[in-house]
């Protein structure tokens, strides 16, 4: 996967299997923003925790009844019950290694100064689910809709002693090319520019007249079944490619092929109709929606101008459960001044950037030019 050093609009394809008829997503994304795919950061203690925690420090430090546990690097009151995230299980402090016997703590016995009534529990977030996130205008084949971003939960499933992950970076391909490939009538390959006239002019079936030989083939008169022919076409194609292309040229050939072109045209048509502006939908694939789902979202920072509120972040009125799961996710923005961003900020930043480079309603040719031209927007 090609990762640009600056912000750059590029064509990105997401496919979960190698078969062309299976679900695919194709979109224009800015891979510079996260320097690749964005992965959610471990959730920090939330505000509620911080308030309780600060209060605890103030009260306990005044009585000198605390100590620093070196291994945990967190202040733990000895003998108190505490909730530590361990797959949602509660662990009492007795199971956590402490240093209460350490000689470096002089003074009164720690236990004696602890009031039983003051026992309090620290609640951590136990749902530390990892999500992969790609902002940008993506077209989803299964739902026939464009979305503002793709959010995929990263988990693993053990099948027959083999770990099968729900998401692998291999699923994401950056289709960054500078020129396309086309096949001439004599079967030779040549480089061409990438525009609406030349897209989709590469097909291995066109490479030579060999492909017409089957018409004289006796077997064609009988309808063939796949079981007799399995692997045959794949092997023929690999032989043809071997004669014509180096691995470096493969990406050009792939992007110039009919399948990617078909996908891309669907996306371009959608951009033609609806322009570069937030769709108010994201694609999500997680344990609730293992097959992927497009959900409607609202961007509260856009709405707050209208209703004069100070709310920010995405809201999902139709699915509060998902809203709770994903609205607190944060990612590390690595371009410009790096900081922590949430889903809403990322999506809106990406749209501002894309509008800056291609405008609000670009033509198909303008989008194609942007994807190969490498024009970088400062």
């Amino acid at each position: 996967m090609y990762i640009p050093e600056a912000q750059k609009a590029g064509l990105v394809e997401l496919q979960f299997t190698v078969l062309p008829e299976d679900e695919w997503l194709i979109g224009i994304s800015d891979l510079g923003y996260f320097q690749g795919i964005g992965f959610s950061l471990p959730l920090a203690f939330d505000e509620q925790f911080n308030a309780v925690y600060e209060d605890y420090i103030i009260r306990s430090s005044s009585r000198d009844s605390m100590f620093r546990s070196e291994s945990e690097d967190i202040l733990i009151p000895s003998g108190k019950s505490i909730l530590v995230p361990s797959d949602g299980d509660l662990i009492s402090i007795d199971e956590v290694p402490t240093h209460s016997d350490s000689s470096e703590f002089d003074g009164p016995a720690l236990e004696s100064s602890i009031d039983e009534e003051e026992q309090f529990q620290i609640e951590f977030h136990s749902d530390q689910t990892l999500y992969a996130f790609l902002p940008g205008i993506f077209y989803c084949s299964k739902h026939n809709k464009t979305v503002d971003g793709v959010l995929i939960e990263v988990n693993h499933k053990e099948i027959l002693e083999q770990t099968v992950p729900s998401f692998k970076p291999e699923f994401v391909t950056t289709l960054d090319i500078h020129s396309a490939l086309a096949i001439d009538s004599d079967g030779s390959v040549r480089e061409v520019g990438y525009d609406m006239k030349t897209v989709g002019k590469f097909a291995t079936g066109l490479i030579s007249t060999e492909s017409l030989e089957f018409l004289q083939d006796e077997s064609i008169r009988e309808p063939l079944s796949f079981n007799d022919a399995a692997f045959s076409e794949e092997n023929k194609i690999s032989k043809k490619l071997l004669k014509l292309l180096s691995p470096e040229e493969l990406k050009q050939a792939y992007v110039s092929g009919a399948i990617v072109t078909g996908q891309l045209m669907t996306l371009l048509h959608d951009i033609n109709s609806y322009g570069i502006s937030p769709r108010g939908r994201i694609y999500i694939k997680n344990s609730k929606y293992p097959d992927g789902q497009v959900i409607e979202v609202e961007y509260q920072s856009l709405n707050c101008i209208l209703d004069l509120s100070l709310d920010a972040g995405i809201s999902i009125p139709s699915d509060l459960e998902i809203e709770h799961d994903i609205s607190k996710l944060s990612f590390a923005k690595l371009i410009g001044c790096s900081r922590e961003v949430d889903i809403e900020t990322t999506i809106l930043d990406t749209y501002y950037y894309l509008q800056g480079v291609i405008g609000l309603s670009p033509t198909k040719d303008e989008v194609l030019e942007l994807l190969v031209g490498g024009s970088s927007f400062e």
Partner: protein
Amino acid sequence: MSELYAGSTYSACIDMVRKMIMNKQIAYSAPDILSKALSPIFLSIIQIIESKRQDLGIDAERFAQTLCFESSVSILESASLEHLILDLPLITRFIAGEAAVAYSIRGIVDALDEEHKVKRIAGAYLAALTYLILNAQIPQ
């Protein structure tokens, strides 16, 4: 019994091909020979999936794909071609896409049926692996 047989066949195939490649026993000049030498791995993967299809359910294709990918990586490593692993997903998808068109042109109408998906995944990986290994042998 059958699944145990299929599983051990698979590991035996992988080991055999890895040894053949490391000892340079496979003649790289002919695509057909390499493809034939690599095919037992993918045939045994198909066998594993078929014997476990009931248990795998909707995960069958995902599992097939993971197994094919891991096997291809292992073969590329034994041929000291680790740098080509990055090209593997794209070339596999390319071949799978072109092959789907080619089967239709040839009039093999049932090629896109649900039941053949695993075979097509395995076929695409086999062809991609053949291409990548042979291409690396061609003097540039």
